[in-house]
């Protein structure tokens, strides 16, 4: 299909090189290093405040490390951030949803800014997270777990080769956790790469290839 688009599309190897970052007086990232290949999952653990979120935000280029680099396919990602960004999906604590839009509209605007989305794709993604029944409701009427599911639908819809997930199972019931587990498994089976920050066990049968523990 449309593989002539040179921007991004695969992440075969992601590498962090001696990432150092201070937040005011706090030395948050103290020389973080790892490598991640396709189809692999890196679990980042650590207590609250150990810098899990900071690490994810540094990896995706929102924060700039004072030392060290993030390399994708051996190239510094800061050399071409838009290309790197179009191949990744970052999901923070909060789903970027608007209370005054329906779940479906939210997904349409959120992902539509990034890639072409067809109605069928939207429906499929919403069905994937069991949201079909309430996807036309305004997000302000949804529960925290349901909002989380909408965010997961965005993840499923975006098809980015690299996922950066911050506590993806927060607020989810057992079924929801299963959905996260199977989404992660699918992504890995496809050859995608995942960095997931969570101090919980990864849901489902997923086992992280590597666990990176951040000391606080």
């Amino acid at each position, binding site marked *: 299909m449309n593989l002539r688009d040179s921007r991004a599309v695969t992440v075969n190897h992601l590498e962090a090189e001696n990432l150092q970052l*201070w*937040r*005011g*007086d706090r*030395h948050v990232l103290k020389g973080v290093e790892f490598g991640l290949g396709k189809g692999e999952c890196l679990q980042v653990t650590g207590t609250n405040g150990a810098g899990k979120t900071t690490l994810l935000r540094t990896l995706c280029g929102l924060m*700039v490390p004072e030392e060290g680099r993030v390399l994708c396919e051996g190239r510094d990602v800061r050399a071409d951030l838009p290309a790197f960004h179009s191949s990744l999906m970052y999901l923070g604590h909060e789903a970027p949803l608007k209370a005054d839009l329906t779940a479906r509209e939210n997904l349409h605007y959120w992902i539509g800014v990034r890639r072409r989305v067809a109605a069928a794709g939207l429906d499929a993604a919403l069905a994937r997270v069991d949201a079909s029944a309430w996807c036309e409701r305004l997000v302000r009427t949804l529960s925290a777990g349901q909002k989380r599911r909408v965010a997961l639908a965005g993840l499923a819809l975006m098809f980015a080769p690299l996922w950066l997930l911050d506590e993806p199972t927060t607020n989810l019931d057992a079924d929801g956790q299963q959905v996260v587990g199977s989404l992660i498994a699918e992504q890995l089976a496809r050859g995608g790469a995942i960095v997931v920050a969570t101090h919980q066990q990864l849901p489902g049968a997923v086992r992280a290839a590597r666990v990176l523990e951040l000391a606080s």
Partner: protein
Amino acid sequence: MRWTWFHRLASPPYLYGLAARLTPWFAWPAALLILGGLFAGLVLAPPDYQQGEGFRIIYVHVPSAWMSLMVYVTMGLAAAVGLIWRMKVAHAIAASCAPIGASFTVAALVTGSLWGKPMWGTWWVWDPRLTSELILLFLYLGFMGLRAGFDDTQRADRAGALLAIVGLVNVPIIHYSVIWWNSLHQAPSVLRFGKPTIPGAMLAPLLILLLGFTLFFAALLLVRVRAEILQRERTARWISETLSG
């Protein structure tokens, strides 16, 4: 490498040491020039044939006004270097500039107002220079206010730097729009000076003072920049080595 001096300057320990060594070389000439210039301005310069002794205010007003603008330009340029090359010491310079510039802007406003009273009979005239000066004061206050709003020095540096650059682009626009505005309403300019006809005996003290104030700014900047560098580099090892050594 032609750029080594640039990289050396960008290194906080190097600049810290350099600033400490250079300070007296600026401070003492500045003190001499300012005292000499003020004496010359008050005593040696002949009175103006129109404004009498009152014109002597230019010897404090013009250098203050010059400082307010020059410091802003320095701040904006340092901010641009800091923002583009992520250079800590450039941010330290920009942050050091603001209080100095703001204080001299206040001085320029007060002295301008003190000049306006005998010349025009009111303490405040919406003269283009005074108006621009007042706007400049607000730009300084905005910069300092924005910096103060951040807990984290790094973000304060970068947000402040962007504002300083936007301000720098805007200063000429504001200045010319104010002149344009003033020309419509035909308020005659109070502060007339800088004409080439100004006699040498009156001009010389002014030039001495301009140089003196500029050197004074350099000396102040060198002292303040050391404080800012210390604050930014508080976790670095070279600081404890420098302090104990």
